[in-house]
């Protein structure tokens, strides 16, 4: 029982989940497909990590081609669904509305409810032993750790991307503004000087 508990604890950490980070070039669409049974619950979490306005279009289709989820220009979202049909479900990320910014998108596709880590945990006659309840606690905490780490990692990546963009913008615009400043002020003086030079000649001629 102890060994079984530990085995379940370790394997359940990655049950039926796929997480990928992909680069979405501008005006492109990337689709992923997954074969699912009916009566299964799946969750799709996605977040845009960098690029443009940090938004992306996303849609999910069931095996019959019916769109069960569609959102445009979302920065992050989480979508859960209980499947009614057995077949291939498709989800796509689209950057077609953007002409020059390619995006980096992270998504996490989880299938199925997590099985309880002790096989007959819910319908037991006796109470759980200390070791078993310790296993259950560790399992739940580790799940929380995974979620927390992923959340902070994505947020940090996104904020870092924004900060670097800001830094670049500040540098370029500062240099540009300084140049414009010089050009405009020297130009103004030159222009004024050129006005007065001509007028002097014409007013001198009209006077006599």
């Amino acid at each position, binding site marked *: 029982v102890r060994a079984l508990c530990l085995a379940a604890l370790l394997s359940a*950490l990655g049950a039926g989940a796929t997480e990928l980070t992909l680069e979405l070039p501008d005006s492109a669409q990337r689709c992923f*497909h997954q074969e699912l049974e009916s009566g299964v619950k799946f969750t799709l979490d996605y977040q845009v990590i960098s690029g443009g306005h940090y938004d992306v279009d996303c849609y999910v289709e069931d095996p019959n081609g019916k769109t069960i989820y569609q959102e445009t220009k979302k920065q992050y979202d989480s979508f859960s669904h209980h499947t009614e049909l057995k077949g291939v479900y498709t989800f796509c990320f689209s950057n077609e509305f953007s002409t020059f910014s390619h995006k980096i998108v992270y998504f996490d596709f989880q299938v199925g409810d997590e099985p309880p880590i002790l096989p007959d945990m819910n319908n037991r006659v006796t109470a759980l032993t200390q070791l078993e309840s310790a296993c259950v606690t560790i399992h739940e905490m580790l799940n929380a750790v995974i979620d927390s780490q992923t959340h902070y990692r994505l947020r*940090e*990546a996104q904020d870092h991307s924004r900060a670097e963009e800001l830094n670049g913008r*500040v540098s370029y615009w500062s240099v540009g503004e300084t140049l414009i400043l010089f050009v405009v002020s020297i130009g103004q003086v030159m222009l004024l000087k050129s006005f007065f030079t001509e007028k*002097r000649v014409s007013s001198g001629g009209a006077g006599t």
Partner: protein
Amino acid sequence: LALYFHIGEREEKCIIEDTPSDTLVVGNYKVQRWDIHKHDFLESAPGLGMFVTVTSPSGEVILSKLYGPQGTFSFTSYLSGEHIICFQSNSTRFAVIAGSRLRIHLDIRVGEHFLDESAVQAKDKVNEVHVRLQHLIEQIHHVTKEQDYEREREEKFRKTSEETNSNILWWAIVQTLILISVGIWQIKSLRDFFISKKLV
């Protein structure tokens, strides 16, 4: 039970894995080719292979091998950062002619240490629990590694933000000084000009 996506015959598609240093990344994939006659994807088309290229954050290619239609690849990250894993088939046919697509099933695992099942099946129950506990400890070490990596990244991020902040301040001061000095020059220059032209 893996996810799959489509790729053109000569196309290359990449995914990004952001991992701390010293982490094992293992990928399982399976390739199927679309058969025009049967209108379905064939199981492991013969002769079809997949180039898997892994680029480290410094731009160096750490893995570039040709695998068969089905396989497992793995690499250990030396540097922490974004590793780019790219897939391209070794098909020599042009996509235009065949109109063919490939279906790639993919499953990537980061940082998992695989349990040596034979050691676990040992008759000794105490040893079995011991082995599993070791595995658990390794996984918790991976959690710690990820956290250290996160700390590194946050430091870089904070440096970028502080640099931006001081950049803005410095440039604002410089521009104000330039504005004032150029303004003074303008007035002086115009005054001298008017005096020389005997307008004032």
